[in-house]
């Protein structure tokens, strides 16, 4: 059995660690590229959201490398993601690929079914072993997400921000070549040490921007056109409202009550949006409120074209912008997105933040408060 799975930012590092820890052979799909997107766009319904197209591209590229089993998470949530696995199965079978697809759906009253699927995917019936590997996999995920966080903090402050990119790129190239949890953690450690040695410019003023919106678009750098890097090089420290670590904590390790952070978002969204609107629409609103309260300089919402929950959130964001006086910009991406226009918007947004801050500083000097 050669297992593969779709890409979503750093997730592949942890998924590889977890599955290899259980003794499976893993085929990591090639890094998302234009070719991935072209393949996905060709075989997907035209108006489906972008993550779906990337998934299909990932599968086909992995199958070409020999994968015969695909792992997908499912969701019964009221957003198109709930239908992803079903349609993806149909498409791959229509294309004539003989692959097994295992979906991890939320139990929905039949917990044994999920357990059975996990046992099948992991190739073992030893529940203790599975749990142990799950915990180890989670640790890898936390460490690799930490690495991204450090990079995001370093980039705007570094004397040469491109040094940070080179370290991260090298890490992603190297981590594919190693096997199992220990070796992966070694690579993360090595990259982290190198990152910490990147020279920074002292007393440099950086601007803080919070990224909210649809989870896949926030997490997968290919899809958001490397927004963290682009903003980083413009002197912005980026914080993402959703990361794979946060997702795992909320959905896998906190049980039915949910994680503290996610519940805080739902609470913060209440004055604007009380109901669940599918996907992470409510969390987007909540995260924006939290970033505004924490004094972030600006907020950017990211969504794939036609994402219904985020369209609901988008229409609420101007109210938050008005109430808290924080600039919020929405960026929509799909396979037609032009990079030049995207960069222009980011540059203009950062200019706006700088001018605002200068203005506030002058006010402080004048009135001494």
């Amino acid at each position, binding site marked *: 059995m050669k297992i593969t799975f779709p890409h979503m930012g750093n997730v592949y590092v942890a998924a590889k660690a977890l599955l290899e820890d259980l003794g499976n052979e893993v085929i990591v799909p*090639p*890094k998302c*590229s*234009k*070719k*991935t997107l072209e393949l996905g766009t060709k075989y997907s319904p035209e108006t489906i959201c972008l993550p779906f197209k990337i998934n299909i591209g990932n599968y086909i590229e992995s199958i070409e490398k020999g994968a015969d089993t695909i792992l997908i998470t499912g969701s019964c949530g009221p957003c198109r993601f709930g239908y992803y696995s079903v349609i993806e199965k149909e498409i791959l079978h229509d294309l004539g690929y003989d692959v097994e697809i295992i979906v991890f759906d939320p139990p929905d009253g039949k917990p044994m079914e999920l357990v059975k699927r996990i046992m099948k995917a992991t190739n073992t019936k030893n529940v203790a072993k599975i749990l142990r590997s799950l915990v180890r996999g989670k640790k890898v995920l936390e460490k690799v997400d930490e690495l991204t966080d450090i990079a995001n903090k370093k980039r705007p402050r570094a004397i040469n921000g*491109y040094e940070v*990119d080179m370290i991260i*790129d090298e890490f992603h190239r190297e981590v594919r070549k190693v096997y199992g949890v220990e070796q992966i953690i070694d690579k993360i450690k090595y990259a982290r040490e190198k990152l910490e040695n990147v020279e920074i410019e002292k007393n440099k003023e950086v601007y803080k921007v919070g990224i909210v919106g649809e989870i896949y678009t926030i997490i997968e750098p290919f899809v958001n056109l490397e927004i963290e890097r682009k903003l980083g*090089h413009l002197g912005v420290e980026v914080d993402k409202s959703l990361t794979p670590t946060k997702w795992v904590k909320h959905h896998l390790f906190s049980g039915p009550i949910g994680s503290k952070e996610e519940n805080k978002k739902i609470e913060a969204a209440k004055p604007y949006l009380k109901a669940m609107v599918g996907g992470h629409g409510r969390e987007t609103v909540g995260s924006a409120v939290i970033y505004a309260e924490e004094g972030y300089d600006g907020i950017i919402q990211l969504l794939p*074209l036609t994402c219904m929950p985020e369209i609901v959130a988008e*229409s609420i*964001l*101007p109210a938050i*912008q008005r109430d808290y006086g924080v*600039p919020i*910009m*929405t*960026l*929509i991406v*799909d396979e*037609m997105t032009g990079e*030049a*226009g995207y*960069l*222009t*918007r980011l*540059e*203009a*947004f950062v*200019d*706006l933040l700088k*001018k*605002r801050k200068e*203005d506030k500083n002058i006010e402080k000097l004048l009135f001494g408060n």
Partner: protein
Amino acid sequence: MKSYYLGIDVGSVSTNVVLLDEDNKVVSKKYLRTQGKPIRVLQKGLRELRQENDEFRIKGVGTTGSGRYLASIIVGADIVKNEITSHAIAALNYVPDVRTILEIGGQDSKIIILKDGIVTDFAMNTVCAAGTGSFLDRQAARLGLDIQEFGRLALKSKNPVRIAGRCAVFAESDMIHKQQLGHNQEDIINGLCDALVRNYLNNVGKGKEITGPIVFQGGVAANVGIKRAFENALNTEVYVPENHDVMGAIGSAIMAKEKVKKTGKTNFKGMDISDINYKVKGFECSDCANMCEVVEIYADKKIVARYGDKCGKWTNKLKNNNDEQLA
């Protein structure tokens, strides 16, 4: 010898060049069609400026527009800024208390909200160009009209005709349908102007607080039909500055002036650049699946710039001998 500041705006549809004096007054301006040849058109603009004016010296250069990086390489710009900031700076120069800027260009339309002379909010069209100049250009061509006449005809309209303007292609179908029903040409044109404004306000202007004074600029601001449609929809007067078509270039010249004041020198390569033979070559890098289209710019056989690669491999290779930082 007089000394001026040079502002360059290389856009998708037009390339604009202006000369500004110390008081931010426009001495000379050029509005040229880019036609997919930004370097040659820019050189042509510079040549024309040189011919039309007595001998002058350039104290600073700024570039903006979607071709701002390319232009900055060619001329040696002191400042490279995005269109939003440039447009805002230019509008503030004409109307210091401006609160709203409506800007419609060839393929972009934007709205900029200001407070106390500072940009507080902005939006650009995100996924479609239905509300922009190219859309109007296309419809005018379809009707066999010159784009200059277009707006004046709209003012003659007496009966309103509603055209579905959400999408450029469907607007065309709807327009043909209205023609075949027998509506007057001026009514249809007026309907198109209304559709464009409706689309702009519902798309770009969604959720923005539009208050006066309002400045309308960009190439489309020349269209009196659109101006009137805005005034009707917003119920206030809309001000179109004299140099509305080159505001981006004016803004970048003003910023160049401020920048040069700080640094004390300019990077400008001199007006002779209009005579250098620039060549653009490109290749598709096949080292990974991204297949980046790398662009190389040659000035008389010497590579002066290279960009377009995601990984920075080609850009960096050049940077070792040339300290230019490109985005």
